[in-house]
């Protein structure tokens, strides 16, 4: 491809918007630093957030550049069938908000991190193991975030016209990681909550208007999107359980994955923990449920627009659809950012890019803080012989943030973006979720759950690491899809919990 074809409507004026916006967000983050007076305010914002602010922060954390990227990559190749995933996300979030299932208990216990529950229920060993596996899964899970952010910026802003795109993506990724590490170290959870609110306002309005603009543009209306997919992929583009689409096992896996994320995934549960009360925690999930749908559905719509836009030009067809529009697309990560850069007028595209970049900082800040808090409080502090002061704990968390940033840089440079980033994220999340869900539900609802049962379930979750090597496994066992492997691992961990709890009950239960 000629590099000039990657030119977009992004201008110098848009760069000024991005620079000013990011600078303002950075200054705000540093300013609110003066409200950090202890571990509680640094890690859970002092547990003083009202329902509206907490919901904005909940949606703001999830509605970011990374979400836009992985949702659009998936929707670009799968079509409308992908929308079943956000629909499942919305229904599950609504049910958790309506019932307060697990999150009510966590908030009432005034936890700072989920592994603290493991200590309360099973003792310090389970907390340390749970915290270690959670941090491992979480850091692997965010391993592709910087690369996706850099890919978006490179193709949306037209930087891809300058030189070798891969080199530019790596340079942008390095700069982004430095930016977010500095921002997180300087700020803390108060900064996250307040900047999430700004992100929520700017991105919600910006993306909704951009969607309207796209649907009103020539050749990109609803009928055009439907026609393009129906003529290229047929029913498989609309029916998620069609044999050539996701299939039933993937959908069942997604229901369980979203349920697990809702009450066991650190960054999501942290919004229940920052809430002013258990009632506010429930309201956050209940009112935030449409956001769970929209955050994935809007980028999917942009991906559909990109499909129509690029499938109409012979040169782009060769680049994005080497097997034809009915086959698997190539360069899926570049389609949506390039399309937005070409569609939106100057000024507007700058505002969207600025909002997304700031959201990228906020998502990283939230994830960094969550994993650093887990490692600092749930692994280092319990293992340390000396008692840890709050100042030491915050200092530890900040050092860990820097180490995680360094790991992300290495991982991003080494690991190629997989065909389905969404599946990669579900697999890495499962490393922790499969065991943790059994331990949490068993810990709350089954009195006989023992320490050894919880430990066995947690360690059993490590089997999900096999999902990262799914291709060679599938060559040996063709029927073993990623979703079947995921479902099997949930069942396996639950079985381990039951068997080990019966075989090795806690001493007090025996007495």
């Amino acid at each position, binding site marked *: 491809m000629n590099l000039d074809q990657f030119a977009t409507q992004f201008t110098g004026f848009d760069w000024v918007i991005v620079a000013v916006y990011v600078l303002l967000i950075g200054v705000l983050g540093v300013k609110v630093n*003066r*409200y950090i007076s202890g571990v509680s*305010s640094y890690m859970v914002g*002092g547990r003083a957030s009202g329902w509206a602010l907490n919901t904005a922060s909940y949606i703001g954390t999830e509605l970011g550049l990374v979400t836009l990227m992985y949702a659009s990559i998936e929707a670009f190749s799968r079509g409308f069938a992908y929308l079943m995933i956000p629909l499942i996300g919305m229904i599950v979030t609504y049910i958790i908000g309506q019932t307060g299932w697990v999150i009510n208990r966590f908030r009432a216990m005034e936890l700072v991190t989920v592994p603290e529950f493991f200590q309360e229920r099973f003792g310090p060993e389970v907390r340390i193991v749970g915290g270690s596996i959670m941090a491992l899964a979480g850091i692997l899970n965010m391993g592709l975030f910087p690369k996706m952010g850099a890919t978006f910026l490179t193709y949306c802003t037209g930087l891809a016209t300058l030189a070798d795109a891969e080199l530019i993506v790596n340079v942008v990724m390095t700069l982004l990681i430095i930016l977010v590490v500095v921002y997180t170290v300087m700020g803390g959870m108060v900064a996250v909550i307040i900047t999430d609110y700004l992100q929520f306002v700017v991105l*919600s309005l910006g993306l*909704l208007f951009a969607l309207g603009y796209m649907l009103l543009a020539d050749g990109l209306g609803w009928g055009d999107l439907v026609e393009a997919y129906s003529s290229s992929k047929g029913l498989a583009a609309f029916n998620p359980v069609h044999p050539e689409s996701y299939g039933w096992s993937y959908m069942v896996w997604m229901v369980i994955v979203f349920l697990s994320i809702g009450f066991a995934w650190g960054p999501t549960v942290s919004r229940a923990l920052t809430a002013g009360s258990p009632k506010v925690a429930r309201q956050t999930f209940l*009112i935030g449920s449409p956001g769970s749908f929209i955050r994935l*559905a809007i980028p999917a719509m942009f991906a559909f627009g990109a499909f129509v836009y690029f499938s109409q030009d012979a040169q782009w067809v060769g680049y994005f659809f080497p097997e034809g529009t009915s086959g698997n697309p190539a360069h899926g990560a570049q389609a949506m950012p390039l399309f937005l850069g070409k569609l939106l007028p100057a000024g507007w595209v700058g505002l969207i890019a600025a909002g997304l970049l700031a959201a990228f900082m906020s998502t990283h800040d939230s994830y960094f803080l969550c994993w650093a808090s887990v490692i600092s409080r749930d692994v280092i502090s319990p293992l340390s012989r000396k008692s840890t002061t709050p100042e030491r704990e915050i200092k530890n968390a900040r050092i860990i943030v820097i180490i995680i940033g360094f790991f992300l840089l290495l991982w991003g440079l080494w690991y190629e973006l997989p065909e389905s980033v969404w599946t990669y994220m579900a697999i890495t999340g499962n490393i922790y979720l499969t065991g943790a869900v059994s331990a949490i539900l068993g810990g709350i609802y089954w009195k006989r759950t023992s320490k050894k049962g919880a430990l066995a379930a947690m360690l059993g979750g490590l089997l999900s690491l096999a999902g990262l090597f799914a291709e060679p496994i599938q060559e040996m066992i063709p029927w073993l899809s990623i979703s079947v492997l995921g479902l099997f691992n949930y069942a396996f961990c639950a079985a381990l919990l039951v068997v080990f709890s019966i075989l090795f009950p806690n001493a007090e239960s025996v007495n």
Partner: protein
Amino acid sequence: MENWIMFWKYLLMAGIGAYVITVLLIIPLGARDIVSLLRELGKHDK
């Protein structure tokens, strides 16, 4: 296929409508909560 197309169309309309209401509700009330949060944290500071 027609049924699926109609399903996605109405789902998107309902989802976007619900989200617009959420946004309009949260923008003013979230700003109010920020003021309360900073006031609360300011008290702890003193």
